[in-house]
């Protein structure tokens, strides 16, 4: 059982942090619930490795608490935290057989040999390693080694969370999806909290039920892959998730909505009211290339853009358009007709999102984001 609660957590590598930039992790509150499959996603340098090391106990946070099932573990070393970790490069004991590798944590805890036998066989079965048990661990392929590292975490019945640190980095591309599948199966079979740290959106979205996107030492969104795609809570999430990322346009307030150049975009009245209350002038609208509607011909509701470039990617096409000096990317299907010179587009209301100070403004619910 483990719910991992990061309470008012902050971490800085400098001795006397006084400004926000000194913090690798800015103050945050976050809960990884028991038994969930989670990912921690972000670009390099966003603080995700720091956060991982704080959870595993290799680093002690500057401020705040790490709670496992409500008990503070700040000062408990990694070996006593009941967590396992799978590293970027497979860590195996190469002088041992696969069996001995898997048995190692159990034998360290002086588990009776009968129990070691049954437990190792059970885990080897789940990981499809049974045929390799007698082999020397040093001659295996990277994916098999990585399964062993994972197995060493699973054999211990007291392990309640497994942390993964970019575990598929050294795996052959053709084998990656099989290992991803294995990971998901393992998660469904064993009721264990798993946190998967990566910079790759595919890894994160495939593995996790919920993803925490980290940017600049903060978790800017914690949501399902679908939420990250359809309702990014922060402009960075919009940019980082999806290829190409979200179109983000800097805009000013106007009477019925927002404008840039001579282009006016109407928004719902609730949204207009909400925007008027906000002190900040840093307003952006965002829409994904997939959601921009392209009309077949001129239309009163549509904006007229110049077609700059068409990128034919085979399965779909990316149109690069210019609207009032702003470049927009639009994704259209393979069979859809490509407009000539001018394109007529509109932004469906449900997919047009408004960001103030980089965070999403939601008119339907109460204000979110900035705290």
């Amino acid at each position, binding site marked *: 059982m483990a719910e991992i609660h990061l309470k008012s957590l902050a971490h800085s590598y400098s001795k006397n942090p006084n400004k926000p930039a000194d913090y690798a992790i800015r103050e945050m509150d976050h809960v990884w619930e028991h038994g969930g499959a989670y990912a921690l996603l972000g670009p*390099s340098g966003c603080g995700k490795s720091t956060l991982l090391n704080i959870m595993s106990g290799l680093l002690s946070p500057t401020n705040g608490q790490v709670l496992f099932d409500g008990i503070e573990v700040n000062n408990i070393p990694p070996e006593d935290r009941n967590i396992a970790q799978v590293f970027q490069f497979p860590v195996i004991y190469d002088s041992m057989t696969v069996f001995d590798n898997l048995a190692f944590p159990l034998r360290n805890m002086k588990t009776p040999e009968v129990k070691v036998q049954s437990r190792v066989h059970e885990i080897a079965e789940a990981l499809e390693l049974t045929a390799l048990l007698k082999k020397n661990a040093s001659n295996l392929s990277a994916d098999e080694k990585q399964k062993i590292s994972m197995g060493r975490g699973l054999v211990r019945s007291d392990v309640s969370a497994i942390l993964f640190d970019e575990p598929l980095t050294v795996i052959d591309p053709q084998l990656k999806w099989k290992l991803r599948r294995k990971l998901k199966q393992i998660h469904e079979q064993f009721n264990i909290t798993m946190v998967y740290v990566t910079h790759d959106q595919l890894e994160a979205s495939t593995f996790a039920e919920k993803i925490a996107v980290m940017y600049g030492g903060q978790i800017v969104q914690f949501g399902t892959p679908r939420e990250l795609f359809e309702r990014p809570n922060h402009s960075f999430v919009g940019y980082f998730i999806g290829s*190409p990322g979200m179109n983000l346009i800097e805009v000013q307030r106007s009477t019925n909505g927002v404008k840039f150049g001579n282009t006016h975009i109407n928004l719902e009245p609730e949204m207009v009211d909400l925007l008027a209350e906000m002190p900040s002038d840093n307003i952006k609208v965002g829409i994904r290339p997939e959601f921009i509607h392209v009309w077949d011909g001129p239309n009163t509701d549509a904006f007229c853009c110049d077609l700059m470039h068409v990128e034919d*990617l085979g399965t779909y096409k990316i149109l690069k358009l210019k609207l009032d000096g702003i470049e927009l990317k639009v994704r259209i299907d393979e069979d859809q007709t490509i407009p000539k010179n001018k394109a007529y587009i509109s932004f469906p209301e449900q997919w047009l999102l408004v960001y103030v100070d980089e965070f999403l403004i939601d008119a339907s619910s109460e204000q979110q984001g900035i705290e």
Partner: protein
Amino acid sequence: MSLDLKNLGYEVEGEKYLTDVNLKLEPGSFNVLLGRTLAGKTSLMRLIAGLDRPTAGSIYMDGIDVTNIAVQKRNISMVYQQFINYPNLTVRENIASPLIIAKTKASEITRRVNETAAILQIEPFLDRYPLELSGGQQQRTSMARALVKDASIILFDEPLVNLDYKLREELRSELRDLFKERNAIAVYATTEPNEAMALGGVTTLLHEGRVIQTGLSTKVYRNPINIEAAKLFSEPAINLIPGRLSQNEVTFDDSVHFPLDDDLSKIPPGNYVFGVLPSHIGLVPNHDDDLEITMRMQLAEISGSETYMHVVNDHFNLVLQLSGVISYHIGDSIKVYLPTHKLFVFDQAGNTIQTPSQRIRGN
């Protein structure tokens, strides 16, 4: 400058790296070499550069045989997979180094370094050292060094492979724009079909040291000449189902039947391999002749904005490429719709008999 490769072969101690490569690269063209690891991409680039000498055939530049001319005299630049820069020189000095070797005038050097740095957006870092920069900036520096000297051939050996995908997206489109205004020949090796498509230009498919197909990327993509070309140029790879075409219907693996349409009925009966692109299969029917098949869910890989769904039944497995984020549980039973008018047909030897684009044209 044009580049002509004639019957090039390269082997070492009986091991063949390249066999009978014939290619003509036009001035100002962007050429992508697409192939898996060890397909011979790097070998071919090294021959073009003059770092290795071919064991058969010859290389012509502007009609002049340069097969035996050393690399230093070929006016070539190369960008590698690793970020290769001089660690003890600043970014500015790194970029200037080819010009200094060529004994260019100081004022000219300053002008060109600034110009190239501006294009690649590394102006703010000119006085820093490469190791103080991020991976993307380091690779920009090595690209700037390759671009600054006006080489007539610029070779890129998987330059973006070590960068994360957002940086790849950006650098890829910058590169393409950069070459629009140049008259140099660009040769770009990659293992990723999507990258070949995104870069545009001409794609040459390399497989086991041989050229299997070459042509405009979009044309090669839609009309692969054989099964190998189709597999190489699709990501996720094209779904292949063995089947039997009889007088009036097609049977996939003795399990699924559907009637012939006009185009399929032109093919003589027999055993064929049918191909369908992952992006052509859907979860909802959108054409009359869509074939409904019940499959079991194996895994949904989500790329952020797309879902690659791996499904299986007792006879074959399929991968679907769907827009948006779609989640299912492993083991769920789902119906997929396979458009029979978008089938690729390959004969037993693997040669293409029909592609969807030919069939649309035929209608």
